[in-house]
């Protein structure tokens, strides 16, 4: 094929995908999904007032508040992104079929893969924008709170006559609980997890006939995904001659092949505790996200390409 024609065809694909993605984004925005952001703001403000019992010494005073802000914020982000990635993806396809808007779209020169990719990217765009806004809110409040804790603790340390190195150590400990690059990495991990879940829901919605079925099955698979590592371990151990039955072996193989290991994303918890996210883990999460996005999208295309309306 002529390279120029190939470039034109590729540009046309991107153009159509972008139109469908922007439309899906607008559709979800006009469903007033962003109201969740107000809910998030309330959670964020509320997390400032959670005074957990303090067991550590006075040098740790205020740090719990920083952890609480991060924990509640990332928890709310996870909840929002997981629910939205499943429900929005499960909703968009059956709704188009039911309303027959899909007929008018597929009756245009729109390849089915463009339609699927556009819908998925529209959902992901919405999640990305929402997480970005939530991240900005969280980082802003965390920065203000960190400065408050820092000035209080520095005054306390100086009053108690701590050495310069001890003060520097205390400062580093407090800053590690504030807004860090690892925290931004954790937010990105939340987004990548949502990407995997949305892609998986897309695949389910291509062969399911209702939004409810897609939603329930997607949540179940998300839940099962947390045991993917265990399933993989069962399958691998069965190969070296244990007494695992062939049914268990087959199920374990299926689960470990099809489902992503959602435990990988538990790295978010250690970031809440103030630990650094290693760059290797970060890179691994990106690769896992991209792999499952592509895998589920292509699988969805195989199912959807044969589907009759």
């Amino acid at each position, binding site marked *: 094929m002529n390279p120029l024609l190939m470039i034109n065809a590729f540009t046309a694909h991107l153009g159509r995908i972008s139109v469908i993605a922007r439309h899906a984004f607008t559709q979800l925005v006009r469903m007033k999904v962003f109201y969740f952001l107000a809910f998030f703001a309330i959670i964020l403000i509320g997390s400032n007032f959670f005074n957990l019992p303090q067991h550590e010494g006075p040098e740790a005073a205020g740090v719990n508040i920083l952890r609480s802000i991060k924990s509640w914020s990332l928890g709310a982000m996870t909840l929002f992104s997981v629910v939205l990635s499943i429900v929005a993806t499960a909703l968009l396809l059956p709704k188009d079929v039911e309303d027959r*808007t899909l*007929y*008018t779209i597929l009756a*245009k*020169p729109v390849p089915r893969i463009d339609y699927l990719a556009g819908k998925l990217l529209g959902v992901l765009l919405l999640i990305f924008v929402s997480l970005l806004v939530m991240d900005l809110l969280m980082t802003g409040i965390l920065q203000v709170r960190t400065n408050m804790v820092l000035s209080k603790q520095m005054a306390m340390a100086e009053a108690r006559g701590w050495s310069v190195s001890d003060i520097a150590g205390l400062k580093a400990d407090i800053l590690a609980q504030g807004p860090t690059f690892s925290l931004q990495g954790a937010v990105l991990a939340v987004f990548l997890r949502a990407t995997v879940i949305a892609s998986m829901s897309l695949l389910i919605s291509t062969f399911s006939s209702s939004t409810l079925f897609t939603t329930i099955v997607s949540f179940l698979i998300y839940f099962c995904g947390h045991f993917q590592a265990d399933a993989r371990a069962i399958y691998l151990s069965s190969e070296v001659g244990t007494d695992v039955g062939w049914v268990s072996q087959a199920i374990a193989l299926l689960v470990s092949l099809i489902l992503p290991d959602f435990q990988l994303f538990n790295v978010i918890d250690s970031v809440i505790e103030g630990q650094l996210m290693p760059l290797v883990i970060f890179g691994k999460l990106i690769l896992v996200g991209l792999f499952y996005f592509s895998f589920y999208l292509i699988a969805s295309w195989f199912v959807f390409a044969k589907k009759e309306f």
Partner: protein
Amino acid sequence: MTDSSPAVEIRHLVKDFKTSFKRQPLRAVDDVSIRIMPGEVYGLIGPNGSGKSTTMKALLGLVAPTSGECAIFGKDSLKVDSRDEVGFLPENPYFYKHLSGEETLNFYGKLCGIRGTKLRDRVNELLKLVDLEDASHRRIGGYSKGMLQRIGLAQALIQEPRLVILDEPTAGVDPVGSREIRDLIFKLKEQGITVFLCSHLLEQVQEVCDTVGIIFRGRMIKEGNLDDLIAIEDQTELVVKDASPELVAEIAALIGRDGAAELVRTGKPRTTLERLFLRETRDQKNSESNILK
């Protein structure tokens, strides 16, 4: 591809749908062949469940034929590029309720690769054509049935297709809206656009179509030029204005004297209920607007 290739070519189309286990598949379309030449207006008529919509869907690649082939301007219907020059209005369409009429046309235009000034001009032109300029910024969710059909027709025409497929274009629309859609089909015909429509409203099909196919239980039972199909070959119609009873009696006597010819019926021709309705509502509208002036 030259213009001499048929706009629509359906050859021996068969479509079976799977039902539950162990039961025979349901044959929705059974060996249907249709050929529509460019510029023609073709009407496919038949009762509910006779296979009209399935035939159209097969032509658009929305369902895959069990056997047989469908092509649009020589391109296989299962290929995406066959849809380059087709506009489709499905039966009872629902467009995205959150979009306005203008946004809807912009969306479909962009899907067809139209951008910028060209798209803007085309959208304005179509809004004018379907008489929705005043409602262009209103959300589709607030449109009436007739307005939905008209915006549906506009989206079908967005990329200036050479073939327009209309599935029950006037279903559920009031007589005025129905007449407007019929007038639009006439405009398309004047522009040389091929129209393939299916409808229950036989009178409308009769008004606009050149060729008609009658489909029943999935099989094409009659097809041909409309005038040829509906003409009663052994009868001649003579409509006379301001004829006195004496003249009518004289004509009747003349026919009686012929021996071979037979007078079947005399009387006043009747208008249709649709024409009566349209005339009365138009007169009412005019008198109301005169009072307001």
